[in-house]
């Protein structure tokens, strides 16, 4: 699957020259580290007790008991502590809806047309959002920033490392695919219906997506036809004119851009699956999906993840049928073949995704499912990594992967667990003990000239 994406990416990249806005991310200075005697959830469903983890050259190089160490390694005693992969949030609006939430930087919804596949969330991001550092203290090492849900097709999302930098490109997760935000239901029909324009109904929503995909198919056909020509013929003819909207949609049809679909009701998710089949694209995840439990098997059959809240509900009609076992039911569909993700959509929630997973797990256990904590850890690590297309690099503690690692004071399924250290690519990004933590420019001298914002 990933190889296929890369292959398509190459063809596409040749056609439109170099992919613009490439990542220029560079990690922080790193050390070689031996974490001793930790209790580990590896993000692959496993739990290892009193085990060592070795980080070398920014990668995880070994997990096991009594690993040998040399003087080159900084040794961290993690006895009685817990270690997990870096937490990943698949649904964030940090940067596009930063704090303070003022109108001048409220840049998440291009609510001027129901289809804005041409806009990219990364072009809205405010890199000085003070919320990134708060999420880092919650163990979040990467997150996926989406446009809002005002539009049927809202634009491209982007995955970033949780290291605040002065440009967006230098935060972008290297080689992470783009996503496309789509939205069902009340939001688009309310936003445009209130303006007496389409869509004003759910059937108007469905027609809107299909019209766009018909255009995208035609565009892709022209593109394919041009690309199939010989070099001589290409020189004689004209390449189809670039079209930002169509490039994004064609990217979805070619499998290189991942569809993340805001959708609450069961029957609407099923309709979106029909539309995806009609136009031969894949939905990577439904987001919010308060009714995902009603069609959990259908999601599993179609390899679609449910990116869900533990318990949010009731703020609108399509969010009325909440059950707290939603995440567990999606996870356990077809005998455990489901893909469940705990997402935040919220700058407070992103700091406590471990607690949200804990609530979802306990509700699942009460509903009669047999789910381990180690498996529930996948909901906030490997599963969101897969949905963001960065699983080969991160999302679990596996030899060869990026050393994105969190050390917790206690079992992370407890509310009392605090993050003690966060490593991103083997580099310390946060250390509670030495008070090593980032502050954005916004935080500097804003309450008291001599201090940073939350230092007293």
């Amino acid at each position, binding site marked *: 699957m990933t190889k296929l994406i890369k292959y398509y990416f190459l063809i596409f990249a040749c056609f439109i020259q170099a992919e613009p806005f490439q990542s220029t991310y560079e990690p922080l200075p790193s050390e070689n580290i031996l974490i001793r005697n930790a209790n580990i959830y590896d993000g692959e469903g496993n739990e290892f007790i009193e085990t060592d983890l070795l980080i070398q050259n920014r990668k995880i190089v070994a997990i096991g008991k009594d690993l040998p160490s040399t003087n080159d390694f900084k040794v961290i005693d993690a006895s009685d502590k817990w270690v997990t992969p870096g937490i990943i949030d698949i649904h964030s609006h940090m940067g596009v809806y930063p704090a303070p939430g003022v109108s001048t930087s409220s840049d998440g919804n291009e609510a001027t047309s129901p289809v804005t596949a041409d806009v990219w969330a990364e072009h809205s991001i405010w890199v000085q959002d003070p919320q990134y550092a708060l999420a880092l203290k919650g163990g979040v090492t990467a997150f996926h920033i989406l446009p809002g849900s005002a539009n049927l097709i809202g634009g491209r999302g982007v995955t970033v490392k949780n290291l605040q930098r002065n440009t967006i490109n230098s935060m972008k997760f290297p080689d992470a695919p783009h996503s496309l935000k789509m939205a069902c239901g009340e939001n688009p029909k309310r936003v445009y219906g209130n303006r007496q324009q389409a869509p004003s109904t759910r059937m108007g929503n469905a027609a809107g997506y299909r019209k766009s995909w018909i255009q995208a198919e035609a565009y892709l056909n022209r593109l394919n036809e041009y690309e199939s020509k010989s070099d001589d013929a290409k020189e004689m003819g004209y390449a189809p004119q670039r079209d930002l909207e169509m490039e994004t949609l064609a990217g979805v049809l070619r499998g290189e851009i991942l569809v993340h679909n805001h959708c609450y009701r069961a029957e609407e998710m099923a309709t979106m699956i029909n539309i995806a089949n009609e136009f031969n694209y894949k939905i990577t995840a439904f987001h919010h999906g308060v009714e995902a439990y009603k069609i959990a098997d259908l999601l599993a059959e179609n390899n679609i993840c449910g990116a869900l809240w533990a318990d*949010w509900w009731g*703020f*609108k009609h399509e969010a009325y049928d909440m059950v*707290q076992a939603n995440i567990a039911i999606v996870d356990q569909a077809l005998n455990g073949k489901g893909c469940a993700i705990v997402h935040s959509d919220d700058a407070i929630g992103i700091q*406590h995704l471990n607690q949200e997973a804990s*609530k979802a797990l306990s509700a699942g256990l009460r509903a009669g499912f047999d789910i381990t904590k180690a498996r529930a850890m996948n909901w906030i690590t490997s599963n969101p990594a897969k949905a963001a297309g960065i699983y080969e690099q991160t999302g679990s503690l596996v030899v060869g992967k990026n050393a994105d690692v969190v050390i917790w004071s206690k079992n992370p*399924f*407890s509310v009392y667990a605090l993050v003690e250290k966060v490593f991103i690519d083997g580099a310390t990004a946060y250390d509670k003990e030495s008070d090593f933590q980032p502050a954005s420019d916004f935080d500097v001298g804003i309450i008291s000239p001599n201090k940073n914002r939350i230092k007293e």
Partner: protein
Amino acid sequence: MMNSSKKVIFIFLIFFNGVINSESTLIQNVTIYDGKNNDAFIGNVLIEDNKISRVSSSNLRGDLVIDATGKILTPGIIPTDTDIGIVEIGALSVTRDDSSDLYQIGFSIYDAFNPNSVLIPWNRSNGITSTLTLPQNTDSPIGGLGSFFVLDGNIEISGSKDVVMIGRVGASGGESRAETFSIMEDLLEFASSLESRDMGSYKEIAELIDDSPIAETMELHPRDLQALYKLVNDDLPLIINANRASDLLKLIEIKRKYDLNLIIMGAQEAGLVANQIAENDIPLIINPINNIPESFDELAANIELAAKLEKLGITIMFNAPRSHNFHLVRQGAGVAVANGMSYAGAIKALTLSPVEVFNLGDRGQIAKGKIADLIIWDADPLEPSSMPEKVFINGKDVDLTSRMTRLTDRYTKNKEKPNGYRN
């Protein structure tokens, strides 16, 4: 002495005979957090009629005995800032009863309360036994009356009407906060000038309004003036939503000038003026999990706020703005403890503090004579993964079924049937 108290109980029993199930319930060998900021102790709690009749470490006898060894018992949780019963679906105005276009100061939500709201069984099954339900802010910087409701499941409303007034000050995008403070002071000045003999008929009150520039400009109704009078003369608690440190100091000044029973809600920058808040004995309602500088009034938002306030002896209560899940005050309290607050202090903030601050009667505490609103938890109540095993409201063991548990059952049991034909 002995005889007279026996006589009182005897009369009490006759009075309630046939009205309330007189079987007693004994919760045995349970770990008790009594709500009073005491350390936990293991003991036995006897419920008779609607009250806690005994709390003891020695053996007691009851008709029904619940062995709760290893379990934690707390008073029922009382969130202080909810719209339970007056908002069913946030984005559906036809299900909202939390605002008024006409009344500003005297708007009461009491009669709008819906005891059949689906929020009630859900929050109750999560440990919420009663609620302080507040309206939206009105056009006036002080105004709107909140009520206290007991979530006992009866169709008749059970609670106390108009126990608190609300208000707000801070960044609005419209008027300067200086104007807000001026309106507040003009209203309070006017209210202070009122005598009880002025507050007779609506006609008399209407004449007072005509004579007051501020009341006339704001187009107040006699109902508004009655509420204002009550605020200044009857020590009615006043919750002002405010965050910026300078606003908190100005509110303290106003409280002192007009001798108000002031509670500050939000209070994100309380840490910067904590000494002044402590000296003036002002209770705070905070959301301990909210450390987002969501506005320029909240720049000092800090996850360690609850711990800092507690150390100065400030009375703290919690809210949880997340739509519909007011029981998440527990999770917030857990986060407060993780960040330095004492455990018993957090339990008190969820239980007895609201009762004491808002005069909510004999609730919020595990002690002899108190109304038996009690929760037996399946594990640590401040862990969001925990749930109540039993909930007692007014001494009655209430059913913990909710629409959410029904829907869960529908999609996890009897799946061979089409979903419309499942239970």
